[in-house]
């Protein structure tokens, strides 16, 4: 084997040059690869950062829109408007004398309003981001192929 290599270098001495150039370029290429990866990640981070900042402003705007819509709804369902609408469609206020009380089994009256979860009820809304979007490539391969393979083996 060694004889064959010496023979090859004797017949084509440029191979040795190529080898030395290749050896010297190897760290350069490695460096370039590392720099490229660093640049890509850096660019992606910057892009994500900008996106988050945009979303931050967008969130502010959305919160403002929500507040506005909530108030608009309140205007439309205000006491005066509701009475007007009820009268327009022919409803009349029931005199108290004509009110009849009937027992409804299981009905305990109107529940107190709960506009937000009570303290101590963490994670009541569950995870906001689906696990599907958080799994790594390995997680995906494991769940898609390995788990399904194990399942089919178990089934057989």
């Amino acid at each position: 084997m060694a004889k064959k290599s010496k023979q090859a270098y004797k017949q084509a001495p440029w191979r040795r040059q190529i080898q030395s150039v290749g050896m010297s370029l190897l760290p350069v290429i490695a460096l370039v690869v590392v720099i490229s990866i660093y640049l890509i990640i850096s660019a992606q981070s910057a892009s994500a950062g900008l996106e988050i900042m945009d979303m931050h402003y967008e969130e502010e705007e959305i919160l403002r829109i929500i507040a506005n819509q909530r108030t608009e709804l309140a205007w439309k369902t205000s006491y005066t408007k509701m009475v007007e609408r009820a009268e327009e469609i022919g409803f009349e206020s029931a005199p108290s004398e004509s009110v009849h009380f009937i027992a409804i089994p299981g009905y305990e009256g109107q529940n107190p309003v709960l506009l937000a979860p009570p303290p101590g009820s963490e994670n009541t809304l569950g995870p906001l981001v689906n696990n599907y979007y958080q799994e790594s490539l390995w997680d995906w391969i494991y769940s898609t192929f390995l788990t399904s393979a194990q399942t089919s083996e178990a089934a057989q």
Partner: protein
Amino acid sequence: MKKGNFSRLTLIGIVLTSSSALIVLQMLHIQNSTKHQELSQWADEEYSYAIENYTPERGNIYDRWGRLLAGNEDVYEAGVMLEYVTNPDTIAQTMEGVNGLSYDQIYDVVSQSYDEENSIYAVITDFLPSGVIDVLSDVKQTYETENPYGKNTEEPSLRGLIWSSHLKRTYPENSLASNILGFYSFRDRQEGMGYYGVEEYYDDLLAGNPMETFMPRNPYMLESLPEVPAGASLVLTIDREIQAMVEKKLDEAIKEDEAVSGTVIVLDPRNGEILAMATQPRVNLNQYWKYEDEFKDKVPFNRAISETYEPGSVFKVLTMSAAYDAGVVDDETTFNDSGRYEKYGGTILNWDRKGHGEQTMQGCMQKSLNVCLAWVADEKLGAEKFYDYMQAFGIGHRTSVDLGGEETWPLSVPDDADWYPIQLLTNSFGQGVAITPIQLATAISAVANDGKMMKPHVLKAIIQDGKQYNTTPQVLSVPIKAETARTVTDMLVKSLENESSLALVPGYSIAGKTGTAEIPVEGEYSTDLTNASFAGWGPADDPQFLVYIWLEKPQNSPWGSVVAAPLFSDITKELVVYLDIPPEDTQQNLVAKEG
């Protein structure tokens, strides 16, 4: 050939290596030069962060069922970037009439000369609804298409006109519950604050923490993005439907009885929750700056908590409760009413100036005999016990109701320089003593709640950081025993029934007491001007509501039994429906069916 190739390769290698080395050296030089540090520092200061004043969204206010009483809506500020204005005439013409602005007013603003140091931006108007902005946007776009960049100054252009949105406090119910809510001075965008009612009392909570934030411009500094939480939202104990009903009934009564004003408080004596609190006048909170037109001559924003007055016979409930609780009278105690009680240099007369002969305590309350109550306070209770009880009932002290602007009038007691023995007699039937409606309603609620006086309040829950924190009712004091409370309640039920009072509500057992107090005018009590009141609660065997009524100077009739009692009945008839309280016979049937 070989040598030549080698030389060329070597040369290329040397050139490339030298160039690379030079680049690296230059980079190191730049990195370490003093100029670099200066520039870097300058860039950090100027461009790393933007300082933004952030005012969090003011918290919402809801009624007890989650209906919005105070919220925020998106409005716009319109102004001009003076540097870019090419045609002030077009801007003035287009915006003429918006928010009542004239052409000249707008033109004066937009035609200011641009000054990089002092005059870059000028505000034309604020609080524009989105509809106006939509129209302006369309017009601006049209002009921009026809006259790009406003280059032709002869052609119309809205170049330089800009708008930015912000939130404005809004009250969807206008004047409903205005005396409870108070208002936020939203027109003052820098120094706005809550005035009166809930907006004042809970101003800090609602406002959140306005702050000056450093917004990073460097996308790598994500972790330092500031989070400014919104102000806390409040859920009140007020029921919008009951409030509206009570306001309507009160307005009708004031008009019909030609009263100067009126106040109604509806509360749950079991926990002190205020379900409704109506007074006159009221103001449209969306135009709060006009409130001075409505509240002239030092008229308080909310009479229910800020105006003191002599309540009259309603106060007898407290005197009789104190006497029963102290054990100085009982159902067997009698009093021979001659119609006069002369002592301490004064003479006490009954409301009808007549004597009523021998009376039990039941009779004294039923006929509302001043002479009898003066005798009870003076000869049975004595000054010390009487005033101890009155203080335990909270007379002379603020109730600490969670509304801005509560007032009180000090109660004169025997050791005070301004107290005279005759006051014991007059105080026993509610003259010579001043209270606010909320004070007396709270004191009487002890009788309706087995002797426990609950702190009156309007806050049911706070919503902060995405969580709802419910409040807990607080006991203010226990001035009388439960047994006394039930005895007095039964006595007042019978009183109303025996008198066939106009306060009665068919199907329900109601306890209550009327009051007619003369009003002092220039040091003399006037018989023409009265404060007519009624305090009632029910159902008597399990009180779930207490209604307190005060009509000021009614002209139709001066008597509480004629003007205040029917108003109580009118309100209570509807109140029991809102509160799902069936009549007693129906309730018994329902219980029997369930059993």
